[in-house]
């Protein structure tokens, strides 16, 4: 019994020693022998285990990447939600910069801080005060038009009344200066409380739906020509001697974030063309382009007619040259007859076919809608023709204020 135990222990010791020796030999093997043995093990016995390990590693990588992807997706979604806000704010600031460039001087940029309590939706706190040159009754404007006026001024901030405030009553007129009135807030509920009214318009002065209403400059607070709103329709009232119109304000209340406060000097100097120059410029450019294309087309027609006439003359004179004096040089081709310009200037719009010399009926000198001066020398690039054709100057029709199709004046009657 004791001998068997002793033999077993000796065998265990021998096995252990054998394992140790084999391990040491394996450790000491040169690389050229060790690598084939390891590769053989990997390709046979350990291959299933390696596959299991690879699957586990891929699963872990997928899990980790899933978490990363989830985080990235959430971040992208969050940024996407902010993009729209940033884009609108960017557009707004661009418009404000453009307005500042058109104003040139005499303004202060400010942030409008809306109050949160009831009754504060018609007033805003401005981030500038008397330290920045803001004074009481200074006009507050936005790229779209009139916002309000400064009511009280502190050194670092000020409070402005929006057009929806009951005490805010600027004098206004239609863009063509044919009708005058006073702006009042529209006393209504719901979304219509953000509309405004143009009251006191003379009964004989009708304003079309969609017409632009601007400040008239009467009263001395607001310079003439600042857009106030667009006519939605007439309101039937008990006043028989005056008309009242419902207006959609040019500046919606939620958009009143970044504004400009005009100084008194700037308001006195006027803001003509500040809100209308871009439209007039674009219209003038479009008309000049149309005039250029007409000139090019006329020149091409004249050139073709000249070539045709020259060919006919050549055919007519050819027999004479054969039978008559051959030394006589062929007569020069007569100058091509260019079509005379029509009496009525060509325009791209039938409504603008009238000559532009006559100003609108009652266009006031301080009206914001002014006809841009015709270009002194339109860029005519006609091809060379045998006889220079007279260039028809592009016709500049009177600029028609942009008409925004208004929604149906629901609830317009009080």
């Amino acid at each position, binding site marked *: 019994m004791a001998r068997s135990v002793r033999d077993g222990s000796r065998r265990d010791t*021998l096995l252990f020693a054998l394992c140790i020796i*084999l*391990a040491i030999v*394996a*450790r000491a*093997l040169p690389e050229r022998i*060790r690598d084939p043995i*390891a590769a053989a093990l*990997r390709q046979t016995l*350990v291959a299933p285990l390696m596959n299991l390990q690879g699957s586990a590693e891929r699963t872990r990588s997928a899990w980790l990447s899933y978490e990363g992807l989830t985080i990235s997706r959430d971040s992208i979604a969050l940024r996407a939600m902010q993009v729209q806000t940033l884009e609108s704010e960017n557009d707004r600031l661009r418009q404000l910069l453009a307005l500042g460039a058109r104003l040139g001087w005499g303004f202060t940029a400010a942030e409008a801080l809306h109050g949160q309590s009831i009754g504060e939706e018609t007033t805003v706190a401005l981030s500038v005060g008397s330290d920045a040159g803001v004074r009481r009754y200074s006009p507050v404007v936005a790229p779209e038009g009139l916002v309000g006026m400064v009511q009280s001024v502190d050194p670092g901030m000020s409070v402005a009344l929006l057009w929806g405030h009951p005490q805010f009553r600027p004098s206004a007129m239609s863009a063509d200066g044919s009708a005058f009135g006073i702006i009042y807030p529209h006393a209504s509920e719901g979304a219509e409380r953000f509309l405004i009214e143009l009251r006191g318009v003379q009964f004989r002065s009708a304003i079309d739906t969609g017409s632009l209403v601007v400040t008239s400059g009467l009263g001395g607070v607001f310079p003439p020509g600042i857009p106030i709103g667009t006519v939605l329709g007439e309101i039937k009232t008990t006043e028989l001697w005056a008309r009242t119109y419902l207006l959609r304000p040019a500046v919606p209340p939620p958009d009143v974030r970044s504004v400009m406060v005009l100084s008194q000097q700037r308001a006195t100097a006027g803001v003509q063309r500040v809100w209308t120059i871009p439209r007039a410029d674009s219209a003038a450019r479009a008309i000049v382009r149309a005039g250029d294309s007409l000139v090019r087309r006329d020149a091409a027609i004249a050139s073709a007619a000249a070539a045709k006439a020259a060919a006919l003359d050549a055919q007519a004179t050819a027999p004479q040259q054969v039978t008559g004096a051959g030394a006589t040089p062929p007569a020069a081709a007569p100058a091509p007859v260019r079509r005379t310009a029509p009496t009525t200037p060509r325009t791209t719009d039938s409504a603008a076919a009238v000559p532009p010399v006559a100003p609108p009926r009652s266009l006031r000198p301080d009206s914001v809608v002014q006809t841009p001066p015709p270009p002194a020398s339109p860029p005519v690039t006609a091809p060379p023709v045998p006889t220079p054709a007279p260039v028809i100057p592009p016709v500049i029709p009177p600029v028609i204020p942009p008409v925004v199709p208004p929604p149906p004046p629901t609830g317009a009657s009080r």
Partner: protein
Amino acid sequence: MNGLGAVRAVIVFGLLIVLHYTLRPLLGWRAPIDFLVIAVLLAAVRIRPGSAALFGFALGLATDSLNASGFGASALAMSVVGFAASWMKAIFFADNLALNGFFFFLGKWGYDIVLTIVEQRLSGGDMVTQLLLWSPLAAVNTALAGIVLLILLRPVLEPSRA
């Protein structure tokens, strides 16, 4: 150990080896659980020391095949751990979970010490950090996992009394 017990033990060891190559990389811990050491220790208390050394050598050589630079080091360490565990089974493998946990802890730590010294991959402060910080932490994790496995697999590993 009768035939049925041997089959069940082989299944359990196979399960532990599979766990070593699936659960361990899936967890990806810095101080990982070593299921191979648990398998060697569980086998060592059921077989003779020489067989335990041979079993450890085989498992270590399989592990070394994935680590060509340290080829033979794991086989040596596993052989030492298996032989020692089988030789000391009368001391440690009482019916006490805490003692068994300590047994797993010592086995894993001893394996790491032998492996680190023989492999000669680390030196200086890295070796000290590995031996005194990460190896004990891995040994603790291995011991905890071994205790859990012992609790779960006890009905399977214990010989039937019938």
